[in-house]
């Protein structure tokens, strides 16, 4: 019969083997506190976010903006503050915008967001077909992008509601828009596609919106020469709200995330102390 010698656990080992449920609970508490009682933690607006908003603000009246909307439900909390602040910014200006739906969830999400913004649509007197319009959902590939930029009607003979793009009664704004030549700005959720298909052949100005993980790692090489500004993740969504003055959930989310990050930092420090402490103890 073999007798297993059980090693005596040090305080460092005990700290290192902390029950993960304790960590989850603490993080949950730290998230919930600012959501119930907003703390108003200070925020700095990054240059990329300023450039993102300034690019829209600098467009001449009547310019056409194409928005690539890939809002998918599971990622929404990370990107919705950006979407909402951007819609408000677009609605507040004398601009026309078209929306491409590039994800299966996007057709549901877009109308949910526009319903939230009904007071803005009413306040600024924006009318569907005259000031903005939505294309039907399509999963875009390089060839589809190319077709769209060359001749919008070759890809979409009709809008989301089934009105022909040549229908001057329901879609008067589309009577002067035929290809990427008529677009002044593209708000894209990807970088390389947008540069290849819009900037290089047509000289369309680009800015980018997206999730923290889906956009931020990829966009810096293109900024600021090719992509004029970008805004990624709910944190920068909060910055955009603060910069444009269209406050929403982004600022509140930043509060919650900041406090939760304090918890993460504490656990990172504790984890490292445990690791190096037990290493030092063992010699």
């Amino acid at each position: 019969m073999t007798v297993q010698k059980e090693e005596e656990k040090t305080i460092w080992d005990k700290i290192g083997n902390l029950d993960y449920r304790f960590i989850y609970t603490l993080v949950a508490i730290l998230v919930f506190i600012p959501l119930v009682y907003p703390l108003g933690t200070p925020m700095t607006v990054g240059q990329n976010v300023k450039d993102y908003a300034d690019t829209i603000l600098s467009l001449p009246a009547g310019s056409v903006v194409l928005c690539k909307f890939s809002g998918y439900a599971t990622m929404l909390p990370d990107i919705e503050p950006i979407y909402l602040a951007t819609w408000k910014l677009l609605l507040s200006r004398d601009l026309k915008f078209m929306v491409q739906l590039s994800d299966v969830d996007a057709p549901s999400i877009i109308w949910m967001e526009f319903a939230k913004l009904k007071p803005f649509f009413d306040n600024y007197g924006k009318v569907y077909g005259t000031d903005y319009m939505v294309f039907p959902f399509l999963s875009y590939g390089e060839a589809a992008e190319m077709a769209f930029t060359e001749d919008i009607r070759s890809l979409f003979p009709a809008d989301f509601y089934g009105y022909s793009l040549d229908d001057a009664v329901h879609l008067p704004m589309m009577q002067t828009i035929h290809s990427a030549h008529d677009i002044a700005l593209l708000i894209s959720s990807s970088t390389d596609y947008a540069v290849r298909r819009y900037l290089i052949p047509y000289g369309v100005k680009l800015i980018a919106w997206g999730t923290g993980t889906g956009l931020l790692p990829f966009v810096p090489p293109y900024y600021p020469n090719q992509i004029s500004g970008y805004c990624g993740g709910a944190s920068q969504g909060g910055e955009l709200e603060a910069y444009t003055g269209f406050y929403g959930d982004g600022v509140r989310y930043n509060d919650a995330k900041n406090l939760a990050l304090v918890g993460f930092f504490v656990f990172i420090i504790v984890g490292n102390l445990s690791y190096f402490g037990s290493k030092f103890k063992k010699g």
Partner: protein
Amino acid sequence: MEFWDALYAFVQCVMVLSVWSYLYKDNVFSRISAQIVISISVVHYFMSYLKVVYNQGIIPMTPVGWYPLSAGLWWRIFPIIMGLMLYTRLSRKYSWVSTYTYSFTLGLGTGATLSTVIQGSIIGLIVNAFTAPFLGTTTLDQASGILLLIGAMTGLTYWLFTREATGALSYAIKIGRLFLMASIGLLYAQDVVWSQSLFVGAAEMVLKFVKGVLLGQAV
């Protein structure tokens, strides 16, 4: 809060709490909620793509006058046939048929990409790497830009395999590796913050139910 809004908030709250219960341990609620989400997603995706095929492929093919958007674009039958050919992968005997669709799609995508990839994704990025670091308006921005340029240059040396890593090159590679590790750490940090955003969004759903439905407060 109206009845349907309250019901929506209730379903959201129950689903979120069911998923979170997995963090304690695997249980029947977390499994049921996962199955519901997967099932709905599959049906949602299938129906959405079917609608695209119908609206973008089948309706425009029909002779002018049949439907408001009929256009007589008979050639749109070809993409539909190519799409159907993909399902031959379900048969071992005929799976080779699907390769024609793959090769056609790849060829089309590559051709379209190549037309602008050199100017957009190669020359553009090189120009950006050398000019963007000097666009900073403050001393800190400029110092940060120069650091970025050093990082880009030394990071590139890490991928040089045509020369033995000795002398100055070995130091450049070591520095480049540090920059690469730092950028990977940044990616991980972004992933943590992204997960936090999703968590905050879910927490908001629970709060919405508690405040709006249980406490009857405005949300």
